[in-house]
């Protein structure tokens, strides 16, 4: 695959590693990110890995666009070394339906299933995190079954509580903080995905495997009470 470079304004460059979302390109993105993380060129300010791109923000007083492009090309030749890519599996407990997942019924009806079947399908997916973006710790999670896909709401909700699990099209994800949004809400997790007090403030990282596990309302509330006690 040909690697393309393009400017993102006067302070960033985008490295394009593929033109479609697939495992190979995602691996490639993670390797480039790991390489940048370990080398930290002096002109680099930070970087944002996405599905098929890595954007590198730099200081133009230290290196202009062409210098950065040459340096990155050179750096990428070192990618052949096998960089260890960490793969973790994170279990996310979810209490489905009711007040915590007001759209579970809609998703079920839309797919001519029962709410029980939606939960069973959602908890049996083979999920992995494609990227973190949009909101702090927000995971774009792939691997959801077509059988429970659902369209976005016509009119987005103004407030979706933090830790709510949603479905939009064939994607599923968790809102780490309270935000407006148009996804169909099927449940809520007591687990925090945004951890501002930690060195790495996101629970999930690109490449992580995710398992959704159903918990009861009692378990959910017990967990949430612990969370509140911890924060107070």
């Amino acid at each position, binding site marked *: 695959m040909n690697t393309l470079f393009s400017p993102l*304004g006067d302070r960033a460059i985008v490295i394009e590693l593929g033109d479609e979302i697939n495992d190979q390109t995602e691996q490639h993105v993670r390797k480039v990110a790991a390489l940048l993380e370990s080398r930290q060129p002096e002109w680099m300010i930070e970087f944002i890995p*996405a599905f098929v791109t890595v954007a590198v923000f730099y200081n133009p007083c230290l290196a202009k666009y062409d210098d950065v492009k040459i340096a990155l090309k050179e750096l990428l030749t070192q990618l052949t070394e096998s960089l260890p890519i960490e793969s973790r599996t994170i279990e996310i407990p979810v209490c489905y339906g009711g007040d915590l997942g007001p759209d579970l019924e809609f998703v079920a009806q839309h797919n001519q299933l029962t709410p029980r079947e939606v939960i069973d399908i959602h908890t049996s997916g083979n999920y992995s995190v494609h990227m973190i973006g949009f909101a*702090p710790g927000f995971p774009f999670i792939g691997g959801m079954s077509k059988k429970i896909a659902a369209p976005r709401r016509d009119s987005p909700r103004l407030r979706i509580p933090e830790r709510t699990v949603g479905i939009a099209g064939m994607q599923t994800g968790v809102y780490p903080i309270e935000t407006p949004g148009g996804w169909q809400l099927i449940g809520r997790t007591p687990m925090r995905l945004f951890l501002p007090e930690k060195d790495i403030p996101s629970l999930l990282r690109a490449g992580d495997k995710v398992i959704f596990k159903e918990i009861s309302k009692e378990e959910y509330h017990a967990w949430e009470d612990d969370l509140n006690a911890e924060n107070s």
Partner: protein
Amino acid sequence: MLKILKSGLQTSVQDLGRVGFQKYGVIVSGAMDPFAHRIANLLTGNDERLATLEITLIGPTIQFTKDAVIALCGGDLSPQLDDNDIKMWRMLPVKKGSTLTFGEPRIGTRCYLAVAGGIDVPELMGSRSTYLRAGIGGFQGRALTKGDEVHIGKMNLLQTKALHQYTENEFEWLLPPVRYYEEPIIRMIKGKQFDLFTEDSKRRIFSEAFTVSASSDRMGYRLEGAHLALEMPTELISEAVAFGSIQVPADGNPIVLLADRQTTGGYPKIGQIISVDLPLVSQLKQGQHLRFKEISLQDAQQRLVEQEQYIRQVKAAIHLKQEEWT
């Protein structure tokens, strides 16, 4: 300490932003007009990275509980100290018990109040800026309201001397106020997806005026004007966005992404506003107009380097002035 006697429209603690965490989806935040923020800090003898207060459109009433050195830069919101008009873009000593108020906005919408020693709030992820949506950083993660008491950091020796030896007109020579325009011409670099737009859109982005719409905030400004459209509807894969990215959603109205922008986006980017012109955009208010003009990436980077040199000169000049007092 700064006591907030009356809250304005939106006053928040900001610095140069939260750098290095966008890969975890954490937005940068920071001053909408980083130039004014930096100069305000430098004028008080602060490091430019210390926190200031970003005061928006309708200013608060602030009382100083001890002697201080301040500077106000950015939008002119008619500042007064104990009912006397005060000049912006210069250093000013303030006596304990004095009250800072604001009046009619003359030009611009965001004024930066720097205080010698810096606004002292806890650092979170290496920054003191407020991330309003997540409710973290800055002063308790929120805008200031009546009754808040905000701490000021410790002054260094030079700042203390400035406080006592400053005389009127001392900094008169220093800085011409930055011009914010009623209808600025904003320079932009063509975006990665520029060529996906229709011929008509590619022409009109540079030939017509756009209006800042009512749904504009620290995250982004929605513009209204020429309807911009893609030649072919294209599904794009989300990728990073930056301060000043001009995205065009399906409704055809461009959105300029600003300090509180999300980290990634999937809309096509027709252009990218150059760094040195971002303050001109950030200082616009609802209903104002702007026009776009193309500039090359090389020129844009040259302007940015020149601006950094200018800031370095300002820094050196202020330092020299302060040393005269020692």
